[in-house]
């Protein structure tokens, strides 16, 4: 699904190399997790995949279902099936959550040459998906993320993901700022989307999210590289011993 090869990324305005040769392949139907200390480049990887400005790819490639995504605009990547759940979801005052979501769904449909969803159908679908995430009618009406608690923002990200039905979902620290109940809701939301045709890249600091969203593969990122790859047991090892041992091992 997502194939990243020897990806080197530096900041556009600064002479600072952040990703130093990332190799990663996420297959359809699988859940990959990336763990790693703060500042190792996890968020940068997610931003570069989704097309945020400010970064320069100096070497390497990234493809989604064989298509080069690095030259695409963010909206084109979204229409191609890429989704990033933000570590810090953005507040948009004055724009209703539902209005925003319908605009996004229809924009993607249009980009793919599909017909717009009718207001009635949209309402039916969103109500059903919101219910599962315990997002009430008021939250749907309110401006995007404005006045939402940390947990509500993350649930809202998952709602967007559920509505947009992407093929490749990248979740950047979706667990940060969540209490146990919210973590369960978010995980259930993600698990409900698990599907043979869909892949996940779950970025997290902690093992606990991975208790709920069981990964197939776990990568450890440090210093702008994937330094170790293994099964779910790798996450448990991080939980027990921290990154110190692992990184020492690699060095």
């Amino acid at each position, binding site marked *: 699904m997502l194939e990243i090869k020897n990806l080197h990324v530096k900041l556009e305005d600064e002479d600072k190399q952040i990703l130093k040769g990332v190799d990663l392949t996420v297959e359809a139907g699988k859940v990959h997790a990336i763990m790693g200390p703060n500042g190792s480049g996890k968020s940068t990887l997610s931003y570069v995949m989704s097309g945020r400005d400010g970064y320069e790819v100096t070497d390497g490639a990234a493809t989604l279902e064989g298509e080069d995504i690095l030259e695409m605009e963010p909206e084109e990547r979204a229409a191609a099936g890429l989704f990033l759940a933000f570590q810090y979801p953005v507040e948009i005052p004055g724009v209703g959550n539902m209005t925003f979501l319908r605009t996004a769904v229809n924009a993607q449909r249009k*980009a793919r040459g599909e017909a717009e969803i009718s207001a009635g159908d949209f309402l039916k679908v969103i109500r059903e998906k919101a219910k599962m995430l315990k997002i009430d009618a008021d939250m749907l009406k309110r401006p995007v993320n404005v006045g939402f608690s940390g947990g509500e923002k993350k649930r809202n990200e998952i709602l967007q993901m559920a509505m947009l039905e992407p093929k490749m979902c990248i979740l950047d620290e979706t667990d940060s700022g969540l209490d146990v109940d919210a973590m369960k809701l978010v995980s259930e939301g993600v698990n409900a989307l698990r599907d043979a045709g869909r892949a996940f890249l779950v970025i997290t600091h902690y093992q606990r999210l991975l208790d709920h969203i069981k990964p197939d593969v776990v990568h450890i990122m440090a210093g702008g590289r994937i330094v170790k790859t293994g099964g779910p047991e790798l996450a448990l090892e991080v939980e027990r011993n921290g990154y110190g041992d692992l990184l020492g091992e690699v060095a």
Partner: protein
Amino acid sequence: MVAEAKMTATEDRLATLTVPAGGGWLGRAREDALARLKAVGMPGRRDEYWRYTDPTALVAPSPAISTPTSDGDPWEGIDTITVTIDAAGITLPDTLPDGLEISTLAQAGEADIHWARDLYGVLEAAGSRPVARPLAMLNTAFAADGLVIRATGPVAKPVHIRTTGTGDPLHHHVVRVESGAEVTILKSGTAGARANTVTEIDVADGGICHHFRIQGPDHGRHVNTHLFARMGASSLLKSFTLSANGELTRNEAVIELLGDEGAAHIACAAFGKGDFHHDDTVWVTHDAEDCESRQVFKKVLRDGATGVFQGKILVKDGAQKTDGYQISQSLLLDDDSVFLAKPELEIYADDVACSHGSTTGAIDETALFYLRSRGVPQKDATDLLVLSFLAEALEEIGDDALREHVSDRLADWLRHH
């Protein structure tokens, strides 16, 4: 002493006008305004109050634009009591609901005794102190017609004043909202190539007035409006303007809170590009206790457009417990556009809470990326952020249906801009 250049400009302008016939109380009000105008002269570039906006086009003997482009009725779809003002004159509705009286200014002027007599030119004259508003004086002196509206109870349907034309009209409206009455006044229209409109609103104790106006999106007009409001105890005025009018617009609002616990909210959402100059000049006076005022002015500018905001909150001695709020913000979509703001607070009471702020900013790149990452194309995402920026001003329209109507209008204009 009126400087010579001013004197000449004033004489040149006056030479093109004649005081409408009729005499009576209206005639006297006109003569009085003319005398006041002659004493101060027309505005000039050197005037402090016209520092950011060149009044030349508004003052010139004839309009610089001959054929303004026109748009359709922006309130279409809203069930209104519509009054049209066009080349043929004023057309009043055949029937009016209980609690609403509308006549033309000319009709009112024919009556020996009329309630409008205590308001016509009176609120304007009060609002011309301490800062002279000569274009409003000119209007009071020469406006041949306008509407005289009185609400004596709650009026369910909005009154829509639709003014269309291509000339150089002067219209003067007087509105009286009686105690316990509530009325919504909607305005629209390409009033003319150059339009000078004065609206005087007197809201009695406990009265409520909503004043919502859509200017544009037609280009090529020179517009100058004045809103004078006198607010009684526990009265409420909410005024909102959506403006996309080019080339030159100056909207002045002068509000006096004279009764305790009155409230006045004045807001405008303006957006324009290129040859677009939009000026909001606002003066709110608190002269009673426990009053609340809000000024919310937002401008979205691009391709070299200019936005101006001059806003003042004056809290007089004794106006304790005043709650005054003022925000003026611009969103500049490029480096060529400019926003000039002069926020002012003048406070002579000690127990007040007043805040004001003015900001100029660009599109938030993080928010733009967030929207685009959801598949919304750049142009549409920018439009959404423009709507987001303007939302606080639109919030002043309390009625959900009307607010959504304005919001849809705005979204539609943005899509086609």
